[in-house]
């Protein structure tokens, strides 16, 4: 038989202990059996208290579970103490879902009515939105830019490739992600020779955070094709740490082709400017330049040099008899015959009309005369198309220390004139032998 005083004392002891030690693992234990009480109001009070103890224990366990992140913990519906915790539990479940949504890219999430937490979360969402729009802008830029762009880490492993890079080289980001892209694309020089990518300056630049440019680089496409590229490499640094590098490159095949064709055109123009349109041998302008060079050389080294000027005999008759076309043909055949019979160091050019001129480096006057005579004889023996027989007259002059091109060629011209005077098909040398130089 228990009295209400006994009930209060026991309760007080139990609560005092709990206040001192906390609720602990086993929870609050209601210290008295309700059956002990005969008095109905006492017994009812006792039963309510026992229920409240039970609800407190349950609430405590729910709080513990939530503290441990167990969001599925359950609690009885009638538990009046657990209600705010249930609201918390619901919010935490929602937050969990929201976080997953954000992780999956859903930035429409907002947290409402959770005070400071709402502020922080919504602030985070705002920054993510900013970042996303920045990313979007960068993506648009890398999408439309006409350059291939690779982002690599410090080892050269591929982190990002823009569509242009995929288009140019044929490697998709999926197949190359995390692989050392340069091992695949940067391993050959323009003629196809392989080299070790690890030893290249490019990989060295990437590893060491250096800026690197190469306007004459070759990348190997997935198809095996070699693509000449112009390449710029810039380090990517976050704070103090080197993250890798950005490689920007574009195809310069067209540019190369253009340069080559420009080269060819220039060579052609150069040739056109320096050759005689009819005969294909040097023209007078080019001859003057070459003569200047040879004079300078002869003057510097004191070497001998002769000038052989010759003229087709009675060329006017050829034109008059057979027509200008035949005359042109004779000129062409003449140029060919002479060109075939001189050495590579000797230079022949058309001086004008039916006159030709030869530079014979290393030849004194006598040697020049001998060469002229050989050539004269060759011409005489050559069968031209019309008329069959053609002869030429030669005037030979030798370089003197004070000679200009004009004085030298004038003396050869005078000698040629004399050869004509003296009956044609012959060689005349300049009047007085040259002073030794």
């Amino acid at each position, binding site marked *: 038989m228990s009295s209400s005083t006994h009930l209060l004392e026991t309760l007080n002891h139990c609560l005092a202990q709990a206040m001192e030690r906390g609720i602990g693992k086993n929870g609050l234990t209601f210290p008295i059996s309700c059956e002990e009480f005969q008095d109905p109001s006492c017994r009812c009070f006792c039963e309510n208290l026992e229920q409240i103890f039970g609800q407190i224990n349950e609430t405590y366990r729910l709080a513990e579970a939530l503290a441990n992140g167990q969001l599925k913990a359950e609690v009885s*519906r*009638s538990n009046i103490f657990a209600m705010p915790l249930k609201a918390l539990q*619901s919010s935490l479940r*929602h937050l969990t*879902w*929201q976080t997953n949504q954000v992780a999956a890219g859903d930035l*429409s999430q*907002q947290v409402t009515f959770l005070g400071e937490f709402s502020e922080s979360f919504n602030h985070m969402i705002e920054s993510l939105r900013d970042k996303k729009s920045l990313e979007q802008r960068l993506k648009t830029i890398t999408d439309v830019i006409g350059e291939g762009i690779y982002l690599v880490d410090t080892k050269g492993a591929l982190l990002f490739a823009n569509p242009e890079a995929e288009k140019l080289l044929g490697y998709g980001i999926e197949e190359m992600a995390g692989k050392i892209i340069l091992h695949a694309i940067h391993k050959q020089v323009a003629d196809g020779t392989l080299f070790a990518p690890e030893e290249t300056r490019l990989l060295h630049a990437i590893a060491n955070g250096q800026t690197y440019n190469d306007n004459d680089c070759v990348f190997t496409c997935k198809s095996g094709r070699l693509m000449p590229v112009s390449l710029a490499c810039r380090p990517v640094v976050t704070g103090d740490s080197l993250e890798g590098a950005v490689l920007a490159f574009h195809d310069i095949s067209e540019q190369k082709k253009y340069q080559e064709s420009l080269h060819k055109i220039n060579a052609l123009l150069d040739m056109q400017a320096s050759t005689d349109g009819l005969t294909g041998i040097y023209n007078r302008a080019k001859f003057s330049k070459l003569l200047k060079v040879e004079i300078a050389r002869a003057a510097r080294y004191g070497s001998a040099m002769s000038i052989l000027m010759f003229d087709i005999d009675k060329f006017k008759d050829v034109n008059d008899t057979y027509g200008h076309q035949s005359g042109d043909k004779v000129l062409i055949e003449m140029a060919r015959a002479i060109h075939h019979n001189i050495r590579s160091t000797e230079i022949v050019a058309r001086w004008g009309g039916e006159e030709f001129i030869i530079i014979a480096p290393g030849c004194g006057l006598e040697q020049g005369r001998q060469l002229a005579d050989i050539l004269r004889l060759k011409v005489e023996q050559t069968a031209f198309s019309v008329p069959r027989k053609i002869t030429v007259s030669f005037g030979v002059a030798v370089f003197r220390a004070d000679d200009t091109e004009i004085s030298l060629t004038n003396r050869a011209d005078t000698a040629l004139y004399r050869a004509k005077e003296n009956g044609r098909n012959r060689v005349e040398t300049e009047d007085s032998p040259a002073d030794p130089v």
Partner: protein
Amino acid sequence: MKKAYDFSWQDLGDLTAGRPNLGGETSVAIYRLMQFTFKDILSKELGREKTSELFVKAGYLAGREFCRNMLSTALPFNEFIADLKLKLIDLKVGILQVEQADMERFEFILTVSEDLDCSGLPIFGETVCDYDEGFIAGVLREYTGKEFTARELDCWATGDRTCRFVVKPVER
């Protein structure tokens, strides 16, 4: 017998003209007064189950009309839900939250806190938000074109702090 009434959004009237001084808002108590007195009378006339069924139907109609007139069904799902959540807060209907979403099966667990119908009620031991069940199903029907059921698992009136609904498409 008079012809049945067909609801139309325009029937809500022009509140700026009609209530120039009192405005468009009223008290939750008055809203509940109407709802619970309806419940009282209808349950006595038609029985509890029929009443509950009618409340779900009315909620469903309200949800469809609300979606059609207040929400943009062109939005992607996540943004649609975010928009719905904001509107329900703005209109002081309740705080909608998603606890789980299975986007393949289109099954959800949604909660509504501070619900207009039930928050702060005494604990009756049973869920009372029949109208909300219909409302949620109606909104989703209008957005997806598919029929849904929403069943209230927990309610303020069952001792919870939020109303928790399981939402599933109707199996065909």
